[in-house]
């Protein structure tokens, strides 16, 4: 290229030879081969391409990577401050951050990895209805249920939500002998608060898989309330692994409950409940298997759970012990066998809710949700509820640890991840955010959203823009004039407002759209794409205008080809190179626009994450007291480097595909 000093724009004889030899070497190459050769020679563009491919692959295989969960897995009582792991003062391992293995929560009997079944109910005694319904669900699905919420608002019918685990494997194993003390303990507490501490021997695998572990050193496992409602706080945790030693004891509200074979002296309110199940000592007979409970005062062999009378101030505590096929779960002399489930149930909200020992685990077969809904419906039809209450099944929907579409290949990858990495996962290399979520994994998962935006929006703009521009350019004359005037008008519209308006519109009609099977996010992508076609249309029109009088088009027309055929078979392939160039420049624009909308709170909704929401979280966390720079820096870097690479690649492609335009903007 010429420099502006005199004499430099002339080609030397050496240059000429070089050019001629190159021409000879590459004679007869197609446009694409030629472009690829040029692109490879442009180092910056070539490395950008490699970077982008790596980026796309990484975001595609995100479920396969052993990274922490991008979601908040536990709702804590107090939000934690963002943490930075490299500054020496390591925060104590907290639930929801390092100690949480996202895989453990996803694959194991994680409470999030479940389906929610919703009923509309009417009746006086909702608790009774709840019990009956939960029995029914357990009967049908072979899984234990947990009642999440009983809500009634105004004159609307009350809604009952039941949670059941999704995977058939999530139901407790039936071969108790093989798996040891595997099981699930759910703890219903009151709003009185306090920790339920289970003294357990420290076991690394168990520890890591526990979504609720706090203090590693003492071997205490704090159970964190995962949700609270009027009925009190519900404590729940899983024992996904066989572990040695057994439960040593339970403390509640700071009091140690005897560990001498009595798990707990949690008094179940004697005065509670018309069911008149009084204080209920629970014994948990484990199988005839000698577990190595070295330091543990109690071998798991003995009864490790019992409820004895105790002067608790707020005595409304409930334990749900769900085991494999335990033959004997004793509750105050009741001998529970087989599929006996409900033992006691109080009628008042702040009293005992449930006491249940599930002893069966039927294998559930069949395609899950549709099938389940049908089965539940038929079971419901044959069920007569007490007191003339009514219940209608509303929906069965799935929920998993990522709250993400986990079907098909992603689910496969999650499983492969489990096989390959087990419960191991990376630390919080880029710190955590104000909800204890790992920034690194959020960036990677967010890139999936950004990729989707880029893909859909660009595709939309491509389709509209190319068709519109090609048609307008080919028709020419008045049609062209009118169509381009329309584009001009659209250009002078303040488009951001139209988009904001469209998005509030889709938010408003969310339920209706769901009925048509339209995802709000897809619409969001399409809306973005629908406003980026203007430039594309102009560019394509210009190209078509210059091409349409070329001989080959004339020839096609003389041969009697239809307009459609001329447009899409002859013209569009010839404008493809410039279209590709504009495509690579549209993608960054679209991604920026997504970030912009997310900033205004109109983009992707939590718990999903996109780079826009990450950047927004970062900017919102800016405060004068402490600078959480990693919340701003890393998302900005991820976004900046990707968009930079896209821009460089776009420039490189333009130079490669259209050498005439080299160096122009």
């Amino acid at each position: 290229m010429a420099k502006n000093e005199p004499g430099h724009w002339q080609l030397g004889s050496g240059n000429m030879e070089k050019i001629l030899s190159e021409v000879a070497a590459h004679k007869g190459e197609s446009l694409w081969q030629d472009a690829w050769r040029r692109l490879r020679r442009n180092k910056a563009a070539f490395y950008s391409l490699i970077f982008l491919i790596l980026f796309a692959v990484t975001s595609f295989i995100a479920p396969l990577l052993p990274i922490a969960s991008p979601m908040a897995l536990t709702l804590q009582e107090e939000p934690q401050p963002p943490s930075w792991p490299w500054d020496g003062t390591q925060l104590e391992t907290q639930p929801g951050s390092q100690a949480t293995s996202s895989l453990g929560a996803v694959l194991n009997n994680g409470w999030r990895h479940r389906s929610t079944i919703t009923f509309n109910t009417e009746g006086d005694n909702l608790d009774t209805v709840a019990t009956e319904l939960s029995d029914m669900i357990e009967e049908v699905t072979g899984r234990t249920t947990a009642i999440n919420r009983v809500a009634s608002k105004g004159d609307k019918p009350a809604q009952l939500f039941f949670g059941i685990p999704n995977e058939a494997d999530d139901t407790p194993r039936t071969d108790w002998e093989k798996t040891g003390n595997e099981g699930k303990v759910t703890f219903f507490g009151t709003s009185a608060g306090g920790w339920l501490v289970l003294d357990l021997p420290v076991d690394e695998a168990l520890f890591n898989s526990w979504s609720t572990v706090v203090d590693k050193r003492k071997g205490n496992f704090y159970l964190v309330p995962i949700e609270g409602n009027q009925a009190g706080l519900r404590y729940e945790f899983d024992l996904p692994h066989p572990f040695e030693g057994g439960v040593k004891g339970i403390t509640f509200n700071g009091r140690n409950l005897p560990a001498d074979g009595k798990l707990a002296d949690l008094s179940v309110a004697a005065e509670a409940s018309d069911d008149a199940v009084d204080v209920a000592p629970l014994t948990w007979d484990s199988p005839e298997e000698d577990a190595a409970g070295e330091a543990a005062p109690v071998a798991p062999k003995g009864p490790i759970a019992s409820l004895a009378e105790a002067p608790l101030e707020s005595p409304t505590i409930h334990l749900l012990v769900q085991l494999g096929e335990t033959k004997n779960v004793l509750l105050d002399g009741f001998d529970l066998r087989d599929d006996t489930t409900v033992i006691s149930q109080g009628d008042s909200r702040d009293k005992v809710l449930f006491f249940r020992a599930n002893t069966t685990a039927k294998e559930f077969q069949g395609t899950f949700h549709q099938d389940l809904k049908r089965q539940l419906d038929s079971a419901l039809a044959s069920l007569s509820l007490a007191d003339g209450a009514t219940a209608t099944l509303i929906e069965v929907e799935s929920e998993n640890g990522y709250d993400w579409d986990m079907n098909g290949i992603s689910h496969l990858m999650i499983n492969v991840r489990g096989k390959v990495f087990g419960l191991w996962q990376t630390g919080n290399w880029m710190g955590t955010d104000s909800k204890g979520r790992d920034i690194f994994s959020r960036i990677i998962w967010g890139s999936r959203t950004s990729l989707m935006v880029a893909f859909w929006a660009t595709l939309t703009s491509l389709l509209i823009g190319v068709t519109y521009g090609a048609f307008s350019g080919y028709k020419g004359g008045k049609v062209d004039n009118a169509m381009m005037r329309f584009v001009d008008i659209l250009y002078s519209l303040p488009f951001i407002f139209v988009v904001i308006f469209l998005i509030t519109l889709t938010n408003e009609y969310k339920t209706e759209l769901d009925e048509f099977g339209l995802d709000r996010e897809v619409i969001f992508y399409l809306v973005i794409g629908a406003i980026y076609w203007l430039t594309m249309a102009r560019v394509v029109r210009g190209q078509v205008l210059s091409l349409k009088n070329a001989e080959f088009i004339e020839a096609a027309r003389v041969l009697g080809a239809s307009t459609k055929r001329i447009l899409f078979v002859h013209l569009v392939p010839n404008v493809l190179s410039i279209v590709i160039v504009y495509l690579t420049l549209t993608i960054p624009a679209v991604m920026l626009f997504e970030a912009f909308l997310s900033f205004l709170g109109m983009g992707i909704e939590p718990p999903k994450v996109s780079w826009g929401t990450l950047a927004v979280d970062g900017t919102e966390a800016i405060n004068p007291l402490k600078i959480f720079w990693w919340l701003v820096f890393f998302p900005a870097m991820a976004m900046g480097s990707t968009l930079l690479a896209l821009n460089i690649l776009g420039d490189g492609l333009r130079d490669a595909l259209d050498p005439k335009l080299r160096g122009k903007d």
Partner: protein
Amino acid sequence: MWFAVTLFCVVTISFFMMRSVRGGPFDGERTLDPAIERNIEARYHLDWPLPKQYFQYVGPFNLDEHRAEIFGGDGSKVFGGVTMLEFGPSFKYKDFTVDQIISQSLPISALLGMVAMMWALALGVSAGIASALKRGSRLDLAMRLAATGGIALPNFVIAGFLIIFFVFMIPLLPVAGWGSVKYMLLPGFALGAPYAAYIARLTRTGMLEVLSQDHIRTAHAKGLAPKTVIMRHALKGGLLPVVSYLGPAIAGVLTGSLVIEKIFKIPGLGTHFINSALNRDYTLAMGVTILFTVLIYSMNTIVDLAYTMLDPRIDLEEM
């Protein structure tokens, strides 16, 4: 002519789109007494059929047979509609008309936009010229990289970095608010940064093209000082792409200020637009939309005029 058509389309489409959305401006947490609701609706003519509301809104005839004032006062003034540049009362800010709100916030937004554009032009053009003259040097490379980076980062991220550096680490400037010059620096910089980057790129390529042309060679050959050649001869042609970019840039600065105003808590137009769209404040949202359309359209027109003045070869009629 096209201006009127555009404006008509904007007014009509946005009016009917806005009214067709479910949920009104007075939907609140608690349900109102039906009588009160009727009164409120009557006050804002929401009980009229839509076409009538539309004609009332557009004006210039007052369709209200009682000649009622719809925004308070002594009845001496009758609502004239959009054609009389009256946008009606705000539904949300009860004591204000849309005109009042706009006249309060437009100067702020305009000032912010001007600061941003001035800074973007100054930095972008000088950086572009510098890197075009030192083509291939480290300076050029650094500037090109910075420019691409500036295009690649969203302006609210840039704003975040700016706040961290200049407010918290080196406490020089106030973090948010509006008032003296001090308050304008950070938002103006953040708002203008992407445009500065783009202008720098455009200037660079424009200058490069002009510098290799014959008339520049002639100017050099007849012994003019390099400075004169650049300032007098090269710059005029080299800045043409920048001028044509100014229209979109100004539109971008206007809309981009939504975000910047939110971050820096500036009481400008952008804030009002978002709030009004969310609150279903029909008249305010319409007013702001119309205003932005007018601004963008007139900016585009001015840019076209400026273009013909700079480059006599271009005939406006042909465009």
